[in-house]
């Protein structure tokens, strides 16, 4: 994992940062899960931008059994001097669209359905397509994510499946 978890308590986080939606806390130079299971430093993006981007990533590819930390890892690469302007712009556009739909910001739209409506309206945009396209490998090519889907990955070093269940189902 590329995350940089810090030893912060939930109370620390809440006292030092501001809530972004219900899932994230943003403080100066960091984004964290309100559960304190993970935290990530940001150097180039505004922490609130990163929190919104992580939320957007989940709304694009929502897997309820996959923790935020993996979505955070999937988009962490956008925290670079090169990518930051494009992301800040895109997220500003996302928030503007949310406001147009009567929410105070994207992450404050409580129902996924409302956020997805906002995303559908912008799905042809370069910003959306860049984020979506990047997630296909950014999210699903994380080895740590694979077991959450049952996928077992590399098998050569274990001798393949010849003696490890290549034909083990008996329900057909």
């Amino acid at each position, binding site marked *: 994992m590329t995350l940089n978890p810090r030893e912060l308590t939930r109370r620390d986080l809440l006292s030092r940062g501001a809530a972004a939606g219900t899932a994230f806390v943003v403080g100066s130079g960091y984004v964290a899960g309100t559960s304190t299971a993970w935290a990530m430093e940001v150097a180039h993006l505004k922490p609130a931008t990163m929190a919104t981007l992580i939320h957007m990533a989940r709304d*694009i590819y929502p897997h309820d059994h996959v923790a935020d930390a993996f979505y955070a890892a999937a988009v962490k690469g956008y925290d670079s001097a090169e990518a930051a302007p494009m992301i800040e712009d895109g997220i500003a556009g996302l928030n503007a669209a949310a406001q147009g739909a009567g929410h105070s910001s994207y992450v404050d739209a409580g129902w996924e359905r409302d956020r997805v409506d906002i995303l559908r309206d912008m*799905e042809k945009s370069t910003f959306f397509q860049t984020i979506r396209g990047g997630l*296909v490998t950014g999210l699903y090519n994380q080895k740590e994510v694979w077991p959450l*889907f*049952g996928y*077992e990955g590399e098998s050569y070093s274990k001798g393949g499946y010849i003696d490890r269940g*290549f*034909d083990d*189902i008996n329900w*057909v």
Partner: protein
Amino acid sequence: MTAPFDLSDDSVVVVIGTGAGGGVLANELAQKGVSVVALEAGGRYLPEDYINDEWESFGQLAWLDARTTSGDWRVANDFSGLPAWIVKAVGGTTTHWAGASLRFQDHEWKAASTYGPVQGANLLDWPIDPREMDDYYTRAEDKLGVTRTGGRAGLPGCNNYKVFEAGAKAIGYKEVHTGRMAINSADNDDRPACQQTGFCFQGCKWGAKWSAAYTDIPRGEATGNLEVRDRAHVLKIEHDASGKVTGVLYADADGNQHLQRARVVCVAGNSIESPRLLLNSASSMFPDGLANSSGQVGRNYMRHMTGSVYAVFDQPVKMWRGTTMAGIIQDEARHDPSRGFVGGYELETLALGLPFMAAFLDPGAWGREFTTALDAYENMAGMWIVGEDMPQETNRITLNMDVKDQYGLPVPNVHFDDHPNDIAMRNHAYKQGMAVYDAVGATRVFPTPPYPSTHNLGTNRMSENPRDGVVNAHGQTHDITNLFISDGSQFTTGAAENPTLTIVALAIRQADHIAGELSKGTL
């Protein structure tokens, strides 16, 4: 004992590309004592180098030089810079291939006469009699160690196959089995039996699957008659004032250019690069490109009618365990126009790992309709559809003058529109594939669109009459006697079957022909 040949040695046969066609041809010629220089754009990777990881392996082996796309096929939209999935390495795409090895059916050699006129299709009969191929097919099956041929046993069925077989039998299909595969079911030819690791597409780390990279290539080199130069990218074929080819210009790993002289040149760069090379070799004598008096170079590009069907069940399948392509239904391979199309198709099991499934299940899709499918990945089974597509003159490889590759040469544009026959066949196959899984209790099915082309065919096709195609029945170009085409681009029509066994059989046949002509002094 690799033979080093001099750049100025004009007695050698130069083979361009070392995949199914070129790799086999180079070895077969070397075995007969012919001096061969094989030039391969990619590097050398052996089983110890292969990686059990879909994207990493793709980065290691795939051909990633720039290409462009056009046409109404969905690939042009979903993967606009990646029309085809082809390998750039010694051994070519035989490192990635799944190993399905099927003979053409007799009538498929004679598509034009069998199917009659099909509007918009540029159908033609192969100038080869099917009986003439019997012996070459047997030699190819023995070379590749194909299961269920020559007394070799079939592979055992993995979980993905069990689901597929049960569904097939439930809807009345009869020709269902674990396939004729170039994968050892028992130790054979100094290679071990399949260990069911499930990474056939990433290069078989056991060497259980046949690949030219670790069979034909080293065996050819061991004769002392074959030199394989890797990272040698051919840019142009040269000719003399009499119109015969004299050598090839290539760039080495450092980008330095060399001219290798040749007595005969055999082009086997797969069906996008081979016509591109002929077009890029245009000269004042051949302004439309080499061997192109018919205007057919680059045309009639075929990619097989393909698609996939994935299905989710209420029980685990774990399809990634075991051979990637683990079984076949052949009942629909026949020609039976009452189904609403000419030609036929095969259904073959296919498994993708989670990373590739995310990329290929429904490219561009997002949201819960998509993610709930992946949530059920462990309970998913899958099959691939492969059927005969119609050759069309307008489906073609052209030079895109606006985009240049790393050598400053125009890149190939791949244009493809589905023919109505392709669409009718695909819809039929989707319906049948979904019925197979529904019959064993699928809770959800996915008629999945075609991937970037793995089978690339037809762009230098064989014809009786020089007006209709680029090469004759031996793969020799109609226009230039010492220039041959030795890969899948020779295909006159595509047939329903996966092409590689036929590419290999034709390469063995071509080696017999070239060696014969050389010894007669007619080449």
